């Protein structure tokens, strides 16, 4: 009497467990395989016992199958050795793209990625903190700074700088000046760093002006000129602010005077006709006089040398770190580019070897 399929599968499961390679899928496949084998034997006219015995014999002893399973898996566990053997076998497919990519990245970085030097200067902004002009509030320091930077680095100003300093000679020979200015803007850095203290206090701050160029001397020279342009633009705006403030004061004084004269005339007329002046009108007149007096004092202060302080743009720029000649290139890192290129070539080689190895190696 042969064992049943279930008995056989129990033994197979035990053998697989004993060999440390349990495999539920293998058990399921074995069940179907044995059932197919028995059916086939019955079709050939065997008895049920004979068909089962033949199916089990053909499938093989459970311990043999367990050993075979373990062997196949152990082979997979040693895949590192197989990978190493594959790499060695196809080593030139690995070495060649690595060398080619390394050489190509070196050539590209040499011809198309010129070394860039960056020079920078640090400018301190001093803000008086009083941001009121009459009843209007001045923009915050960073807003004033952005406006100044925008005006200072206008296209016209940069075109003049390019021609003065002699920047981008080759580019100017083949590109419109507008394109060259765009190219230059990409190499200019103007970064507002805010104040050292509480940002909400709006007590000034610092900003860094930088310029990148393949020529370190040109980087330093252009950075110096850019910083100068910003300082000059601020001075122009301070002067314009002073003039604007004077005009505002004059307008306020004129208006106040007009109102004061009218009020005085009304009070004189009332007194002449023997009428009593209400306290409210007398008080309003007094307030008007005080306000007018205050305006007159402010105008005198503005006119005095000590009191000169424009009330529109009140920032003061002070260069705290002048531009220096850069000693080291900022980038691109040719070592980095070459390494990346070489690694890319190595990766490509690995891919090729992997594909070829999988297609041909005995796994």
């Amino acid at each position, binding site marked *: 009497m042969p064992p049943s399929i279930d008995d056989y599968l129990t033994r197979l499961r035990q053998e697989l467990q004993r060999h440390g390679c349990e495999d539920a899928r*293998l058990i399921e496949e074995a069940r*179907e*395989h044995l059932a197919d084998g028995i059916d086939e034997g019955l079709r050939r006219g065997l008895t049920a016992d004979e068909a089962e015995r033949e199916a089990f014999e*053909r499938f*093989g002893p*459970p311990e043999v199958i367990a050993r075979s399973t373990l062997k*196949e898996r152990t082979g997979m566990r040693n895949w590192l050795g197989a990978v190493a053997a594959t790499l060695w076998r196809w080593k030139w497919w690995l070495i060649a793209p690595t060398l080619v990519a390394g050489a190509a990245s070196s050539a590209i970085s040499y011809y198309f990625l010129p070394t860039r030097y960056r020079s920078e200067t640090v400018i301190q902004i001093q803000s008086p903190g009083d941001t009121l002009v009459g009843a209007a509030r001045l923009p915050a320091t960073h807003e004033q700074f952005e406006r100044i930077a925008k005006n200072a680095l206008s296209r016209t100003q940069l075109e003049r700088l390019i021609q003065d300093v002699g920047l981008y000679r080759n580019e100017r020979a083949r590109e419109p000046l507008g394109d060259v200015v765009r190219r230059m803007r990409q190499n200019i850095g103007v970064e507002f760093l805010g104040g050292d203290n509480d940002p909400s206090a709006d007590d000034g701050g610092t900003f860094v002006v930088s310029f990148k160029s393949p020529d370190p001397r040109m980087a330093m020279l252009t950075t110096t000129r850019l910083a100068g342009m910003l300082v000059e633009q601020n001075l122009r705006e301070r002067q314009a602010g002073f003039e604007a403030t004077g005009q505002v004061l004059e307008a306020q004084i004129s208006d106040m005077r007009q109102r004061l004269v009218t009020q005085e005339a009304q009070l004189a007329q009332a007194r002449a006709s023997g009428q009593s002046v209400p306290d409210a009108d007398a008080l309003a007149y007094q307030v008007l006089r005080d306000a007018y007096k205050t305006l007159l004092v402010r105008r005198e202060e503005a006119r005095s040398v000590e009191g000169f302080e424009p009330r529109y743009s009140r920032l003061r720029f002070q260069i705290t770190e002048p531009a220096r000649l850069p000693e080291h290139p900022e980038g691109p890192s040719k070592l980095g580019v070459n390494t990346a290129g070489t690694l890319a070539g190595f990766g490509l080689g690995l891919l090729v070897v992997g594909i070829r190895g*999988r*297609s041909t190696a005995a*796994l």
Partner: protein
Amino acid sequence: MNAETLKGHLDLLLLSALQPGPAHGYAIAEKLRARSDGTFDLPEGTLYPALHRLERASLLASHWSEVNGRRRRVYQLTTTGQRALTTRHDEWVEFSRAVHAVVGGHA
């Protein structure tokens, strides 16, 4: 045939058996036995670990399929498996021709 000798070529035999189309384990075993006229008579149970290994290597793919109320794991060649079969077949032809050239005269 010596089982160890046969195992050396088991991958090629399994890949070749699946070249005409997908098949389940029992059909593969039948095909090997029939085509070799009984020469390849491995314990059929040992085919499954080999099939599983080839699947892990992406040379084969498999899925459960139900036919006439019976669940069967059906195997088929992948593109990678097809390429591997071509390569190994060429290598085998070359190898067998060389072996035959050397030992053929003594047969």
